[in-house]
């Protein structure tokens, strides 16, 4: 394996010190001169016609600078299907719909003003489940689509379908099969830093937006379109991304509150900040979708999987975000986790009057894998085969093309299964009962980008100054996951400078090249590959100039050296021969000749070289750009076919649990996670990604759930919506990173930000079944659910 200087070494993240000192500036900390504070009036009715909005009292309040509604502002359509509006004019379709907004000189006045706004509604009975919304004669949540065409039902017009092989023949050849229905709840991403933005116009009527986004460039496109809607055709948006207090998918869409801030800023002529409180974050920001998944799969006498049928019903809520496209990722495990020749997949998305949803880490994969891997254990039981052996028997292998057309380059599913079985002591502990049990589950996910948009590219720009510093301009977003640490290491490694000479610029659409967004575990893969391309260009530029500059400069060094060491006899060097493009090396910020003598004067410091290149007649500054577009394809999601990612990651998690049969409580005794990563880039960062994902996976499995009643979120705070605390994470976690360098990965690496939470839930559910014989199919697995099922088993609990 290549010997790396920085890659794989323990290097502290560049943003660590400022964050430890409280000096990192989040949206909460930013202020602009003359800035006003915006506040939104939410409908608090899930389905109603707006009869009248009275803003007169709010407008009269001292300190209020603007009160806006859909009546006095231009219509701005937003969302993946443009079925949502910044402010609602005639109808509200969800409890959290925005009907008015205020800008005031301080947040207290803004809040008081919002309370003074009176809205009269004609309230209608809402539809709060896909089943209700699908009933014949159900009222239409959207009577027309964004083009003005009449709609006939509440089905979201997005198709996700796949059929491969001969499904009926596969089914006939099955000796054993199991059908099951599994469900997952609404989950809040729970970023520690809540949502917020600042919008400000300059006197050329261009917009600057400080946004908590993961997609600065798609956001620029969205807001430029909004500017057009506002009559500002041809005007531009500059997106600046401050330090993010977490992302987890919340930044994959542009949000109503951002458009409202833009409208308020334009109306008032001041910068306007909108910041969500925790309660607003829970109640009025889009969570992870809930889903209902039916799976039927079967194997032959020997345990070979022969068919699989997956049907997804997704509660879309009232509007459609990018997150609605979860089934595009659900197809991956449905078609490509384990070898199964005959697959049927279909997803239906249904409008309801519940909150509309958005992306969260894993993007549909945790949902589908929950169903698939739970069902696989049930199939193993039916077939009388050890669940671990069943998985091993059906392992994906390197070099195969899956039914969805995924081209699997490297694949360590077998290795990860074996690693987990060994670490969790599967043979010794499985089927031993007595309230303790072990379970495992695997995953497949994208690891080399994910083309869900026309371009899956990532640009980078490297600039050198007179001191040998490198400035990095990259459009990806650091949201805590460690992108800037990876960029620092990749630039240091690929260019040949020390990491402390690498400076990562803030993400800003006016300075950074285009990047589709930081999602789909693509940051490391994209930034790494873009860096390799740009660094190669820059090294070539340096080496070309070095042919002339290097001999001149080192000869000066030699003179100085000789003055200090009069007896020194330098080795005889023929610079005409040795000072050639291919002979140069740059390492740790010093230029030298490869395999040349190790004389100190032959090491030319990069800064000195750059000054020599810059400060002369016809001087030059050095920089390089690259635009990396990975070798993957935009799938046809209606046919469910296409190699969406350049490479894929497999992995397995194993867990041992103890179930209290008196209370139904599940205690995790230990957890092991084996993930293929291609190559470890930043060891501490990588561990942090998996540990953090596991914690989110455990919350998802055991207690996280947004409870709703008639579309209203009932538990909008951390008291009633529990995320794991340090007490819940009190068990040993054993990580195994399987390194098989991937040909497409930078330094061999694959993306690994999301996989850590994908198989956690089914691994735990399978362990619970092993412990007490109870199979829970609805997340979260609360003690009440376990106890109810235990009671059904009667006194014969093993």
């Amino acid at each position, binding site marked *: 394996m290549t010997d790396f200087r920085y890659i794989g070494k323990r290097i*502290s*993240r560049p*943003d*660590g*010190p*400022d*964050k*430890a*000192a*409280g*000096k*990192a*500036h*989040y949206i*909460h*900390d930013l202020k602009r001169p003359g800035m006003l504070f915006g506040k939104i009036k939410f409908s608090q009715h899930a389905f109603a016609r707006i009869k009248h909005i009275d803003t007169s009292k709010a407008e009269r309040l001292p300190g209020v600078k603007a009160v806006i509604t859909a009546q006095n502002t231009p219509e701005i359509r937003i969302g993946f299907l443009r079925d949502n509006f910044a402010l609602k004019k005639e109808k509200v379709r969800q409890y959290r719909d925005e009907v008015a907004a205020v800008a005031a000189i301080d947040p207290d006045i803004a809040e008081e003003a919002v309370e003074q706004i009176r809205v009269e509604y004609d309230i209608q009975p809402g539809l709060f489940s896909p089943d209700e919304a699908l009933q014949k004669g159900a009222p239409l949540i959207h009577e027309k689509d964004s083009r003005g065409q009449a709609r006939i039902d509440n089905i979201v017009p997005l198709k996700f379908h796949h059929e491969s092989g001969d499904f009926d023949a596969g089914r006939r050849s099955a000796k054993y099969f199991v059908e099951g229905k599994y469900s997952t709840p609404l989950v809040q*991403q*729970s*970023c*520690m*830093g*809540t949502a917020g933005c600042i919008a400000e116009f300059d006197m050329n009527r261009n917009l600057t937006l400080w946004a908590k986004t993961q997609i600065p460039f798609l956001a620029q496109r969205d807001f430029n379109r909004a500017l057009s809607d506002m009559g500002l055709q041809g005007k531009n948006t500059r997106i600046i991304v401050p*330090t*993010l*207090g*977490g*992302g*987890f998918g919340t930044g994959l869409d542009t949000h109503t509150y951002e458009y409202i801030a833009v409208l308020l800023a334009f109306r008032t002529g001041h910068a306007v900040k909108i910041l969500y*409180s*925790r309660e607003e974050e829970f109640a009025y920001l889009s969570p992870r979708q809930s889903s209902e998944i039916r799976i039927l799969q079967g194997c032959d006498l020997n345990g070979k999987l022969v068919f699989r049928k997956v049907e997804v019903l997704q509660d879309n809520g009232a509007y459609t975000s990018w997150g609605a496209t979860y089934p595009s990722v659900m197809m991956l495990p449905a078609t490509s986790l384990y070898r199964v020749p005959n697959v049927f997949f279909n997803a239906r998305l249904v409008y309801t009057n519940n909150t509309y949803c958005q992306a969260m880490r894993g993007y549909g994969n945790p949902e589908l894998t929950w169903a698939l891997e739970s069902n696989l254990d049930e199939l193993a039981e039916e077939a009388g085969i050890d669940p671990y052996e069943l998985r091993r028997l059906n392992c994906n292998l390197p070099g195969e093309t899956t039914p969805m057309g995924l081209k699997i380059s490297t694949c360590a599913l077998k290795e990860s299964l074996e690693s987990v079985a060994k670490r969790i002591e599967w043979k010794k502990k499985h089927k031993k009962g007595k309230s303790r049990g072990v379970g495992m589950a695997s995953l497949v996910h994208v690891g080399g980008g994910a083309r869900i948009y026309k371009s899956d590219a990532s640009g980078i720009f490297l600039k050198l100054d007179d001191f040998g510093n490198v400035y990095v301009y990259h459009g990806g977003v650091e*949201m*805590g*996951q*460690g992108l800037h640490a990876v960029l620092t290491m990749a630039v240091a490694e690929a260019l040949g400078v020390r990491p402390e000479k690498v400076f990562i610029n803030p993400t800003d659409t006016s300075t950074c090249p285009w990047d589709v967004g930081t999602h789909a575990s693509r940051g490391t893969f994209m930034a790494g590959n873009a860096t390799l391309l740009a660094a190669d260009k820059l090294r070539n530029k340096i080496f070309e100039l070095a042919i002339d500059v290097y001999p001149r400069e080192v000869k000066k060094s030699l003179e100085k050296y000789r003055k200090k060491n009069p007896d020194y006899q330098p080795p005889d060097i023929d610079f005409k021969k040795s000072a050639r493009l291919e002979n140069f090396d740059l390492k740790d910020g010093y230029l030298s000749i490869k395999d040349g003598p190790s004389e100190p004067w032959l090491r030319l410091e990069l800064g000195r070289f750059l000054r020599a290149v810059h400060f002369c007649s016809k001087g030059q500054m050095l920089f390089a750009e690259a635009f990396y577009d990975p070798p993957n394809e935009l799938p046809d999601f209606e046919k469910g076919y296409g190699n969406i990612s350049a490479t894929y990651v497999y992995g397995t998690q194993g867990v041992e649990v103890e179930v209290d049969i008196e209370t139904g409580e599940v205690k995790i005794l230990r957890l092991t996670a084996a993930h293929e990563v291609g190559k470890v880039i930043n060891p*501490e*960062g990588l*561990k*942090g990604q998996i*540990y*953090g*994902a*596991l*914690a*989110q996976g455990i919350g998802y499995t055991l207690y996280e759930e947004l409870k709703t009643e008639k579309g209203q979120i009932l538990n909008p*705070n*951390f*008291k009633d919506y529990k*995320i*794991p*605390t*340090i*007490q819940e*994470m*009190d068990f040993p*976690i054993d990580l195994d990173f399987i390194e098989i360098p991937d040909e497409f990965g930078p330094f061999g690496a694959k993306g690994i930000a999301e996989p850590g939470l994908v198989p956690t839930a089914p691994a735990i559910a399978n362990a619970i079944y092993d412990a007490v014989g109870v199979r829970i199919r609805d997340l979260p697995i609360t003690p009440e659910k376990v106890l109810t099922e235990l009671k059904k088993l009667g006194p014969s609990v093993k």
Partner: protein
Amino acid sequence: MKKEILFSLNGIEVSVFVKGHERLIDVLRNHLGLTGTKEGCGQGECGACTVIVDGRAVNSCLYPALEISGKNVLTIEGLQSPEHRLSVLQQAFVDCGAIQCGYCTPGMILSVKALLDSNSKPTEKEIREALQGNLCRCTGYVQIITAVKQASSQLQELP
């Protein structure tokens, strides 16, 4: 309407005029511009706003500003040395990968600081108890525990 309060902030006496309903976090962030103290929930549930008052870690979002008179307050800004060097504890967080998005970090560090000041060699159980009110969504807490243990042992070795 406004009332003057006098207290010690990171070792320096300060005076601030506050309204009756204002909280300690408002004094720190809005009146004094010390934005290192983060507001995560405003309800005392997440610990992001933790500061140390007279040696005890408290949620500054629940602490009435008027009650701070005459007390000693330590915030994250008071931890590093004047030469812009991180304290041993802060450095341990950086070194051990205990920081991701960093929003919970100042509060987390101050909870640990209060613990280590009163108990220089805490057991893992004591660390967990001291940090159970500090939520982190990024790290899963594993490397935070490592950082606390490292800081504790490094502080023991100091003269």
